[in-house]
């Protein structure tokens, strides 16, 4: 991973946990259903953790890119976010997260996406 992503790791985890609407509920991980057997060895755990981490980093990057391109005007007049951009980013992140968790649940619940 890039050093930037390593740096963002704690912030990313806090962000993911705070925005997660399924916090406290049964853990529905929006990726391929893992084989949680009793005797899971360290290698597999590390592999799963690394895959999850890569997924999370990809999600964060894409979320930031999408909402930045949508909400922030390319002519930078000042350094701080003004109110319109702030509410746009709030709404964008909320919708993105909701859609992402919805799709993840659909994919993890049924074997195939309904067409």
């Amino acid at each position, binding site marked *: 991973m890039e050093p930037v992503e390593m*740096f963002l790791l704690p912030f990313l985890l806090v962000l993911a946990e705070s925005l997660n609407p399924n916090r406290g509920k049964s853990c529905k991980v929006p990726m391929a259903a893992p084989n949680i057997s009793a005797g899971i060895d360290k290698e597999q755990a590390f592999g799963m953790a690394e895959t999850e981490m890569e997924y999370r980093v990809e999600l964060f990057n894409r979320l930031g890119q999408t909402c930045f391109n949508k909400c922030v005007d390319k002519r930078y007049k000042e350094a*701080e976010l*003004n109110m319109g951009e702030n509410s746009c980013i709030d709404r964008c992140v909320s919708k993105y997260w909701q859609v992402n968790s919805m799709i993840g649940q659909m994919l993890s619940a049924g074997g195939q996406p309904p067409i």
Partner: protein
Amino acid sequence: MAASTSESDLNTQVPSSNEADQPQIQAIRMPSMEEIRAQEVWNNCAVRSVASGVMGGGLGFMMGMFLGALDNPMMQEQMSGRQQLIYNLKQMGTRSWSSAKTFAVMGVVFSAVECVVEKARAKHDTTNTVVAGCVTGGTMSAKAGPKAACVGCVGFAAFSVAIEKFFDRHT
């Protein structure tokens, strides 16, 4: 040979300037929760409108005092110097107070409407300024009838757009 020696001189010079440069580059720092909350205070519509009202009141007070000081009493020849001074001070006081109230109301209404509209639209545009200016001008001239309210709306909206363009000229 001369070129290669000059190149090696450059190569020996460059690392030292790099070492001098390195401590000046700082990593990107995410804002802490206190910084985020301090910035979030100014995103609140009530806080912004009250602050804008206070600033408007101050501006109106200054303007009223200045214009009141220029006012000359009607019976200037019959008053003594002290009476003229007292009259002038009273004029300044009343004019500055009424002017401060007017400007404060204007500031509160304008700022509140602009904040609410911008939050609802989630866009930073001149449309927010136009709507806020129209509502402010309309409410201030509403006592003189609907036609005066329309004129006040259009006039104040044009004025506030002009002011905003003037302040954004350096971008």
